[in-house]
């Protein structure tokens, strides 16, 4: 088969009227779409819109209740990942599925070889991987151990893995969530090379700018139904946003506000955990401002957040909250000092999934009145607080006694917001507060952060989302290899400049200065 000509390219993949129900919930409602040879198709939708379910059906992880899938005119046997791979479908998951302790080459051939074979044809495999890497610009050392790779490199390995299995249709699930703007740009360039070679790509995202930058055609999903199909050339950001959410989206309005007294100071903080370091970090956060910390993940922002959360004891330096130096920061100490903490990982740190909404709302203050007296829990007071948090922060749930893990990501984050903001904290530490949330929930979180700012709280916003950073923060500092730069005023900063600083190229002056 030759590469696509100017004539109408044929459909390589066609989904017709795919329907999937989970109990009463219709995750996919008669969705039909087709993908042509040599094109990048976007699949746009909020979290929970049904994108991942649809792709799981395509890849055979789920069984559709109705509908069928054809690849190059042949019906794809449902419910079989093997059949999907054999038909040339490759999937790159949002969370990588690599064995950290093995070299790149082993990861790529793992599972692609028959199990009952004594020798493995590594020489031939190496040559093939090398050729694929060259063809598509996916350079990565085949002998490097995965644990030592950057996130961008890991993603390349995942893509190579799919190509090695002769994928002709590549599905990428939220591929840019972990990349710098520059890395994303290089990923998009790679995708263009794929389609030039006649491959097809399905690009799943909830970020409008990426869909617009990478795709030719886009399908928009909303609550399980296909609401629109658009050529990217003939649509706009605003139209796509409205299609995706179903209503016009408010842009966050940042009212100008004079910063007040210093509410949080870090002096010369150094800390480490494993190979990650924080080196001589200093910062001053003022009341009524949002101070952003930008950086590529893994450069020390987790350590910075952990020190302020009280879960990591710094090796040197002092933490000062509202003028009082805190000798041994512990989670409880920081909470009582008025630090509200929104953790990076809602599932593993923020909430206890198997416990109820009530039990999670009281988690930071359970051992003081009103929640408990003399060692006994006052469940009535706890329920009242939970009811209030659920009502005030619009958490959608089926009652306060159900386990928190049944909530969607957005509702989990609202619950954490409810827990944190209920105490009107002086300092709010928001670490990746909108990661993985749908547009509606993101807007809600932004609104709440701005409300806290308006009320006079100092907000430290750690985020990898530069658009978010530039639309919210008053000042922005960049963290790179454990060093925190001096903060710069947002006015006049561009995404490009920030991206360069995040990659370690300081923009004027000493980036390492405290």
């Amino acid at each position, binding site marked *: 088969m030759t590469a696509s000509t100017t004539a109408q390219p044929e459909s390589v993949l066609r989904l017709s009227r795919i329907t999937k129900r989970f109990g009463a919930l219709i995750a996919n409602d008669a969705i039909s779409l087709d993908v042509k040879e040599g094109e990048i198709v976007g699949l746009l939708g909020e979290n929970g819109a049904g994108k991942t379910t649809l792709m799981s059906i395509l890849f055979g992880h789920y*069984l559709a209740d109705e509908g069928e899938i054809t690849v190059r005119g042949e019906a794809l046997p449902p419910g079989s990942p093997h059949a999907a791979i054999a038909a040339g479908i490759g999937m790159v998951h949002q969370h990588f599925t690599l064995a950290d302790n093995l070299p790149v080459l082993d990861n790529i051939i793992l599972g692609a070889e028959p199990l009952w074979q004594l020798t493995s044809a590594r020489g031939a495999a190496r040559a093939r991987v090398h050729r694929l890497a060259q063809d598509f610009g996916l350079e990565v050392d085949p002998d490097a151990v995965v644990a030592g790779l950057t996130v961008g490199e890991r993603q390349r390995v995942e893509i190579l893995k799919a190509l090695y299995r002769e994928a002709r249709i590549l599905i990428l699930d939220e591929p840019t969530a972990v990349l710098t703007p520059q890395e994303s740009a290089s990923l998009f360039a790679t995708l263009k090379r794929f389609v030039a070679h006649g491959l097809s790509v399905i690009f799943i995202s909830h970020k409008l700018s990426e869909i617009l930058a990478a795709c030719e055609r886009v399908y928009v999903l909303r609550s399980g139904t296909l609401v629109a199909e658009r050529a990217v050339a003939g649509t706009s950001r605003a139209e796509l946003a409205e299609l995706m959410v179903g209503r016009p989206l408010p842009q966050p309005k940042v009212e100008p506000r004079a910063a007040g007294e210093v509410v949080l100071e870090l002096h010369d903080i150094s800390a480490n955990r494993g190979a990650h370091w924080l080196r001589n970090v200093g910062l001053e956060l003022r009341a009524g401002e949002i101070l952003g910390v930008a950086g590529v993940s893994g450069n020390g922002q987790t350590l910075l957040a952990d020190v302020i959360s009280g879960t990591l004891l710094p090796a040197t330096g002092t933490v000062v909250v509202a003028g009082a130096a805190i000798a041994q920061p512990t*989670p*409880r100490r920081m909470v009582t000092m008025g630090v509200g903490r929104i*953790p990076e990982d809602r599932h593993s*740190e923020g909430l206890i999934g198997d*416990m109820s909404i009530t039990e999670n709302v009281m988690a930071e203050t*359970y051992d003081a009145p009103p929640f408990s007296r003399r*060692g*006994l*829990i006052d469940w009535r007071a706890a329920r009242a607080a939970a009811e209030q948090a659920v009502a005030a922060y619009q958490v959608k749930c089926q009652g306060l006694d159900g386990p928190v893990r049944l909530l969607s990501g957005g509702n989990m984050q609202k619950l954490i917001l409810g827990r944190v903001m209920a105490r009107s904290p002086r300092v709010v530490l928001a670490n990746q507060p909108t990661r993985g949330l749908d547009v509606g929930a993101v807007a809600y979180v932004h609104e709440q952060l701005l409300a806290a700012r308006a009320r006079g709280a100092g907000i430290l916003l750690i985020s990898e989302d530069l658009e978010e950073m530039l639309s919210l923060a008053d000042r922005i500092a960049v963290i790179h290899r454990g060093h925190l730069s001096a903060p710069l005023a947002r006015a006049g900063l561009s995404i490009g400049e920030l991206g360069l600083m995040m990659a370690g190229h300081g923009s004027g002056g000493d980036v390492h200065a405290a």
Partner: protein
Amino acid sequence: MRLEPRAERSLLLTLGFPLLALMAAGLFAAVLVMLAGANPFTVFALILKGSLGSRFALMETLTRATPLIFTGLAAAVAFRAKLWNIGGEAQFYAGAVMTVVFGTGLLPLPAPLLIPVLMFAAMLGGAAILYAPAFLKTRFGVDEVVTTLLFNFIFLLFVSLLLEGPLKDPMGLGWPQSKKVIADAQLPRLMKGLRLHWGFVLALTAAFVVWFIDRRTVLGYEMRAVGHNAKAAHFAGIPVARVIAKTALISGGLAALGGFSEVAGLKGNLTLDLSPGFGYTGIVVAMLALLNPLGVIAAAVFVAAVFVGADAMSRSAGVPSYIAHVMVAASLLTMVTAVMFTRHRLRWR
């Protein structure tokens, strides 16, 4: 074939599947009984009669269930906080040792004083034994499964040493056994002529206390939080290491109370066969009860009934009483499977 999580769990499922599980276990045992050349219906009837069929049989079953409630609670409390205490056996014996050390005449106190003192001493002994592995776990990350399990063997040898040495009864005709506890240290029988003693009431009380701690107290909340997600508990400000230490003290103390109750209520002295594996069976009891403190009572009575009934059955039907072990083990397996099915549904293709 695949498993999908169920959106909701109906009451019918929650009760129906465990019932099905017990029936499946019985079916499995029936096959073995037939292989042994007996009629399963007669055998099951005999087991039922021998365990619950008469007042005497029922009392015998409850007597046997008493130590299992204690060790079952010990396992349930620890497992809820994800402290894998496999050392119930050692803690049980520690309670028994403390009981004979202080209860054989060293403390000449009247019963209303002596019994609480002995209970406290026993709990202290068991608590101390589990505290060490818990400390090693929280401080150095040593796996408590290994330490608690291996310590069982060390401690049993230590008990053997005590019974050949300082605790040996001089009037015991050379047998490795301790002196009898004094009359004031004995738990009275519930009724004249029965073997069932106040230890059973103590066990029921312990189960309710544990249930109360779990549902109503700050400590119970902390223990559940740590068990479900220690990282999130730490982030929220729950002192994880301290909670695990407290859990260890309670769990070890409960198992040790079982040793106290068995010596002070039933046997009167300490021998090396005081426990036919009560510490280990307690784990089975806790799992069958799905770690619910009140469920432990039912599970302990069930396991005790199977053992007592099988003993009676083997005397008259000639099928080895080992069938009891098979039945208990099979019901554990089927119960675990049943729990999975109450939470998931099986889809073919």
